[in-house]
């Protein structure tokens, strides 16, 4: 019991440190990189349909691996497409938000009906994250692309570390709900089909969770990524929601957070249908296949593959932003 408690505190401590490190690194880098060249990909000779097809195929495969690896499509999309396709990062981030939004919208209804996403838990967190996502999107579109690229590279490398080190707790022990979560009735019951059991859950450390969601929303808007990679650890390890409820609620939160940030990109002309639509359709078809391959593929192998892919894409983004590997 004491060991469990001690390890829970260690997990939460590492999570907070990792999140704080990510925010610090991202924000401090906005002032760096003055010597780096403005990142403008060269116009290519491949016809438009070649790129649209390549984008569709890439997103299809990203969608397949996104489900078993447990990461959202957006976190794979932005660094990989931003790093290896000729589109400007502004359009890639706009499309990335729509990829994450469409996936979240497609999954949202069944998660809500199944009790794996909880409206009372999600709404207060989503309100704060949506507002900060707007700020992130506005800042992201206002600063030079190479600085966003550098910050993106650093953040992706931070996510790699988080994915490699962060633990998960299927049913965290929450002895007492805090006052705020009690007042908002941020609790519920879900049916765990694997155990054929109804699980009562409640959460704690809500004020800290709300604060972290402000930072998460900001990063989601800034980089155009879904923020499931950060939502799930905060809901699960910090606030103590069961893992399945955390994953489901995280996905539902993205329907609000990514839509508010997406509006900023749409209004600024940073969404091109020729980039966004093949990405959304490819990713959704891939996720459809990925969900069916879930029982065949070994999740741990796919997860290691995705970590390696993200490591490569993160380094590429960093070096591209610094003008070293254009």
């Amino acid at each position, binding site marked *: 019991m004491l060991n469990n408690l001690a390890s829970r505190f260690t997990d939460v401590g590492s999570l907070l440190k990792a999140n704080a490190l990510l925010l610090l690194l991202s924000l401090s880098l906005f002032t760096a990189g003055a010597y780096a060249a403005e990142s403008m990909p060269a*116009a*290519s000779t*491949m*016809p*438009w*349909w070649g790129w*649209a097809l390549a984008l569709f195929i890439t997103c299809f495969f990203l969608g397949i691996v996104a489900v078993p690896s447990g990461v959202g499509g957006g976190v794979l999309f932005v660094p990989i497409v931003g790093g290896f396709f*000729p*589109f*400007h990062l*502004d*359009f890639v981030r706009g499309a990335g938000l*729509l990829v994450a*939004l*469409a996936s979240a*919208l*497609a999954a*949202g*209804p*069944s998660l*809500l*009906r199944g*009790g794996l996403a*909880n*409206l*009372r838990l999600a*709404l*207060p967190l989503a*309100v704060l994250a*949506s507002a900060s996502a*707007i700020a992130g*999107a*506005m*800042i992201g*579109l*206002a600063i*030079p*692309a190479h600085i966003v690229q550098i910050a993106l590279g650093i953040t992706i490398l931070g996510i790699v570390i988080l994915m490699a080190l962060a633990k998960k707790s299927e049913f965290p022990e929450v002895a007492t709900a805090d006052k705020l979560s009690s*007042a908002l009735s941020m609790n*519920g019951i*879900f*049916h765990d089909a694997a155990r054929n059991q*109804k699980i009562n859950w409640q959460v704690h450390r809500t004020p800290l969770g709300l604060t972290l969601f402000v930072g998460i929303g900001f990063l989601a808007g800034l980089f155009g990524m879904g923020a499931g990679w950060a939502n799930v650890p905060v809901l699960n390890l910090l606030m103590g929601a069961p893992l399945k409820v955390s994953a489901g609620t995280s996905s539902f939160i993205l329907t*609000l957070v990514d*839509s508010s940030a997406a*509006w*900023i990109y*749409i*209004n*600024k*002309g*940073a969404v*091109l*249908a*020729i980039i*966004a*639509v093949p990405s*959304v*359709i490819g990713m*959704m078809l891939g996720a459809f296949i990925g969900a069916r391959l879930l029982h065949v593929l070994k999740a741990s192998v796919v997860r290691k593959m995705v970590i390696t892919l993200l490591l490569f894409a993160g380094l590429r983004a960093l070096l591209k932003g610094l003008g070293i590997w254009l």
Partner: protein
Amino acid sequence: MAMSGDDFISDEQRRYATWLSWGARSGLAILVVTFLAYVLGWLPARIPLDQMPNVWNLSAHDYLLQTGAPTGWQWLNLVGQGDFAGLLGIAWLSGCSVLCLLVVMPIYARRKDWVFVVICVIALLVQLLAASGMLTVGH
């Protein structure tokens, strides 16, 4: 919390799910149809598709300057053109959560759960502010 039937899903959560489901499905259908109309040439494109590789490497700011593409909601005036028709589905997907928030508010209000009514109102205002185009940014 009001529950319906013999399970543990609240009424408002069920209603939100139903509206979200219709919003997502119709948005995706609009997205696919308008995109097909765009790439198959059923609708004329303001910027010809074969010219896109010359402009998609520009920043959003430079793209707007070079192409004269509209900002904010002005694209609605050009919705008969393929490249802007594609934005219909995108805008619908981005906006469908607003309807979901609107339809659950009466349930919270009937239950006198004023805290969640206020949370829904704030969530709505945030979404509407983002969508309004009043927040301007630029390189």
